[in-house]
């Protein structure tokens, strides 16, 4: 085992311990329908353990361990169904800030857990051309509507992408500022995506130059790769629970895992998981080793396409194999399907990413 592999193993163990102690499925249930979304006590613990700064460079006050380390953490979030916004905050917000304003005090406040940001970057009307914003910034005021904003309910600040006279910019808004209205859409796992409308909302300019678009693309690719790893964790645990169920649940006087049709389907779930595990990790390794934006975008799409497909297949099959109890809210297995659905849709599902992958590959 190399030194890096050993470091990553230790990191995985410490995240796993922390999240298991915080309370896996029970906490996932409690978080459902909680509009504030974030458990600050757990969030502070994560910050103290350095987990929020794992991808931030050492120069900017982080651990600088790269995307693969972030992926290992995200996978543990998936395995334990942790409701905390790791991928949006660490992949998107911290990643965007570090690329555009590494000296801004907000970056420090984010990785130390003191402030939780929401990222408002997409718009329903320009879903196929992100960055083509109808939201505008002019002389200190924001106007417009952003869609699919994760965690806006519990956020302290909003980081908003908008257009100005000089191009695309990144702006900082206090969550309690005037002129903000939000419409919350409950997701399958009980979390919320928000549509946020800004009317003459006071905002601070963070960056406004040609780098904003590139930094946004890079941060979105990182977050996409982290979401893929989180899906991998969800799928892996759903698979474990299902195999265990097949061994113990008895019908016709024997465990249902003795039936060949179920055995073969369980094998296909296992293969789907192994293909996803090695494929996604190979994508993250390539992203860590390359700065070329096309390669990084292509690999992020490869990872998310695989993760979405595998996690939905595995969690759907898991419900079928559990039978009627699998369709009850009382039984935990459904929590995995519901989390997989939410993570699959966020930042683009498998169909979206296959399309993007093929375009970037060239065909």
């Amino acid at each position: 085992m190399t030194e890096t592999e050993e470091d990553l193993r230790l990191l995985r163990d410490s995240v796993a311990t922390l999240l298991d102690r915080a309370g896996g499925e029970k906490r996932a249930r409690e978080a459902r329908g909680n509009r504030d979304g974030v458990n600050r006590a757990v969030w502070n613990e994560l910050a103290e353990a350095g987990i929020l700064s794992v991808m931030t460079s050492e120069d900017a006050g982080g651990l600088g361990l790269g995307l693969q380390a972030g992926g290992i953490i995200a996978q543990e979030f998936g395995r334990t169904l942790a409701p905390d916004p790791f991928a949006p905050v660490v992949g998107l917000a911290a990643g965007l800030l570090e690329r555009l304003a590494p000296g801004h005090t907000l970056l420090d406040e984010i990785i130390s857990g003191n402030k939780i940001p929401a990222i408002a970057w997409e718009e329903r009307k320009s879903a196929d051309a992100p960055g083509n914003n109808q939201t505008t910034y002019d002389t200190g005021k924001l106007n417009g509507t952003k869609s699919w904003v994760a965690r806006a309910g519990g956020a302290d600040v909003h980081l908003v992408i908008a257009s100005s006279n000089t191009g695309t910019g990144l702006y900082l808004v206090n969550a309690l500022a005037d002129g903000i209205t939000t419409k919350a859409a409950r997701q399958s796992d009980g979390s919320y995506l928000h549509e946020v409308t800004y009317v003459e909302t006071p905002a601070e300019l963070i960056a406004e130059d040609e780098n904003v678009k590139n930094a946004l693309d890079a941060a979105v690719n990182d977050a996409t790769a982290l979401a893929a790893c989180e899906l991998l964790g969800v799928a892996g645990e759903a698979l474990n629970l299902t195999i265990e169920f097949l061994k113990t649940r008895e019908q016709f006087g024997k465990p249902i895992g003795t039936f060949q049709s179920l055995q073969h389907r369980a094998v296909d779930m296992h293969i789907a998981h192994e293909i996803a595990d090695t494929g996604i990790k190979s994508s993250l390794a390539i992203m860590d080793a390359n700065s070329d934006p096309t390669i990084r975008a292509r690999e992020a799409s490869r990872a998310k396409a695989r993760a979405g497909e595998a996690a939905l297949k595995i969690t759907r099959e898991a419900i079928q194999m559990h039978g009627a109890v699998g369709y009850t809210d009382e039984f935990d297995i459904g929590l995995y399907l519901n989390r997989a659905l939410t993570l699959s849709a966020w930042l683009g599902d498998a169909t979206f990413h296959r399309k993007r992958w093929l375009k970037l590959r060239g065909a």
Partner: protein
Amino acid sequence: MTNNTTTDYNAMSDEDFRDEVRTFFETECPHELRHLPHRSTWAEVKDWHQKLYDKGWVAPAWPKEYGGMGLDGAKMLIFFDEQQRLGVVRGRDMGVIMSGPLIIKYGTQEQKDYWLPRILTCEDIWCQGYSEPGAGSDLASLRTSAILEGDEFVVNGQKIWTTMAHDASHIFMLVRTDPNAPRKQQGISFLLMDMDQPGVTVRTIKTLADEDEFSEVFFDDARAPRENIVGEIGEGWNLAKALLSFERLFIGSPNIGQNALNQLETLARGRGAFDDPNFRDRFARLALDVEDHGALYARFADQVKRGETLGPDVSMLKIWITETAQEISELMIEVAGRDGATLGALSVGNHTVDVLGNFYKARPTTIYGGSNEVQRNILAKAVLGLPS
């Protein structure tokens, strides 16, 4: 054998290694041997084999001390990738893939010294005698007998589905040396036999693709010297199981998927299929299935390079890639449309693609080497621990 003793391919950068492989295949492999829709015969590949031999590239996975290239998993993938991209023909390689690794792992020094160089030169061309009429997926039921008379084994019985037996000089086979053993897995031995003798008769069987690909082989008092047993007498089943993991790594290698995908892409470009969003999604899905399989393959190939024994989980590779290659070949037929049942090569721009050839070639892959259903049984019990 010029390069292998001096060149450490694993120390080269991936880019340099890829360049070297690509340049060699592009300049040296004749065009008529690219994307061959059927299994090659020795007569077809003889000259190409000589070039590979002179370069020292006959056995990419063998350790260097036996004349192989000694490639690690990542380099192996690059080697396959370039081979498939250019459609480089697969030679008469059963010796390199199966008999060689068996002899390297279990053979005596004398057996290594005698047989391995002859495999590399193709002086001996091997076929594999496993299946019998009554022993297919249930291989341990085999009945071909080998009885020791003096210094020779006398062999009687029948093998079937023996790939390219009509074009082989030697057969490595599982035979029953002790008919009275208490369990069917016991009393089986691994025997090497020269096929050029009166007691061996080969009858080819035409395939669905109308080709002579496999045969029945009859043994009627055929003979092999006692020293042609590999491993201990009666231990053949254990050797076969160990060898199966090499075989399953090989038949689970990315080649067949990459090759089929390349041909689908050529066909689809020529036929304008990439303008169709539905085709694009299906193509992307299959291309990603091949690419992500490559990552899993590399994991197992590296295990072999580290000298670890492969577990039963290696069967995943075969299941995934053979079923993916079948889907690719089925999509090829759809893209061909009204030409979808036309035998032989279709011309597509400056290229040709044998649509039906690819379809047929993909059929037996889910049957041979232990059908995919048998592989799933094994994985369910040995890897997932599901009860019987």
